[in-house]
């Protein structure tokens, strides 16, 4: 028994030599380095969240109710009439509004099934001229509206309807720029931004002249999607 213990001890000593040449190198370089790295990574990180106090109203008036798309309705289905580049403008509008939200609050998709859509987008005035979108001062070559019918004080009766109408007598570039810009604005309404901003720098200004949501637009839609809604969408067919 004693001999067996001796053998074990010898074996242990062989496996753990008392002198390991590389050990001082590791201990002096690696361990302090990693401790310092851990401290640097874990500490001194000061995260500042954005200020969202600069917003405008979004409640439906005069009912004073809040609407936003509930999570279980994601993705919200948009049907765009296949005329001109309207589907492209709708997809583009969904993309820019989705980009204003950080936490999965909203997702919209284009659908070709108009009967199953949550929002229908139509273009009036005929087939628009063809032109690429350009960065030019806004010309009011079109108008738009978003409408929905209330089934009750707390529920919509059916899908929302976005109507964009373009006018003749403007250059093709002004027309397509206006359709794209106004479609983005109306999609903002369809998200639940039921009021206009009083600031011309915002996409949700009554007569939009910018193409991108501003910081105020972003803050407002973020606050909207974290506010409890008391108006719900119509059931899907």
């Amino acid at each position: 028994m004693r001999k067996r213990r001796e053998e074990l001890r010898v074996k242990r000593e062989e496996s753990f030599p008392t002198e390991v040449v590389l050990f001082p190198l590791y201990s002096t370089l690696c361990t302090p380095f990693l401790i310092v790295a851990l401290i640097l990574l874990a500490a001194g990180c000061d995260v500042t969240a954005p200020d969202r106090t600069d917003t405008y109203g979004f409640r439906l008036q005069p009912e004073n109710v809040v609407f936003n798309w509930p999570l279980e309705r994601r993705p919200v289905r948009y049907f765009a009439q296949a005329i001109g580049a309207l589907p492209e403008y709708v997809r583009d509008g969904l993309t820019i509004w989705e980009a204003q939200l950080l936490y999965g609050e909203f997702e919209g998709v284009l659908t070709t099934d108009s009967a199953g859509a949550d929002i229908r987008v139509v273009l009036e005035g005929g087939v628009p001229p063809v032109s690429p979108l350009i960065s030019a001062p806004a010309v009011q070559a079109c108008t738009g509206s978003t409408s929905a019918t209330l089934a009750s004080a707390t529920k919509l009766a059916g899908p929302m309807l976005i109507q964009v109408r373009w006018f003749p007598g403007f250059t093709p570039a002004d027309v397509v720029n206006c359709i794209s810009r106004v479609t983005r604005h109306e999609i903002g309404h369809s998200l639940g931004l039921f009021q206009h901003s009083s600031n011309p720098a915002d996409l949700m200004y009554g007569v939009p002249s910018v193409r991108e949501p501003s910081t105020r637009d972003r803050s407002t839609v973020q606050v909207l999607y974290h506010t409890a809604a008391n108006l719900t969408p119509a059931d899907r067919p």
Partner: protein
Amino acid sequence: MIGLFGRSNSASAQTRIAIRAGATGSSALVRDSIIQAFSVRPEIGPSIGFGIETGLDTRYRVGVSLSTTWGHLRRYEAAGSAEVVPLSTWTPAVSLYRILFPSISAGATVGAVIYRADRRASNLFRRGSSPMPLVGLGVRAERPMTNGLRLSLSLQYDVHRFSTPALADAGFSGERPVHRLSASVGVSRGL
């Protein structure tokens, strides 16, 4: 169990490949307040990893590994939680382990975390994210099995700083330290 890689001078005898499976939890990636406070963090998800390591001497071994974990990023607030987006992470790393006791080793890791998420919907990874450097510490217990295999039980902690271009666009400044803890069971064999 003494000397994971044996006492042979042959490099091939000292080199082992390993596969591990377990679970990983993470602290919040974002804390925010819009009307009410909430946090956003990955739910505890399954993870798998592959690695290759070799002995430097009788006490130390160095290895490279690649592990991945997946699940959903969720938003947690007082009223409950909601899914934000499916999320996976990939972690390539280099580790240095020291054998403390015959079956226990502990070590340190440097590497990177790569987050992968759907960019289509509204989420903080919408504009992607860069690999984020990490450092970590780990402890591992091992025991031999048949046919030269070894069974291991690992506990790994790591920390990295987190931000994304979408968060910066939205007005966030700075980076949040994110702490992760993973537990795994693995099997290794010599090459």
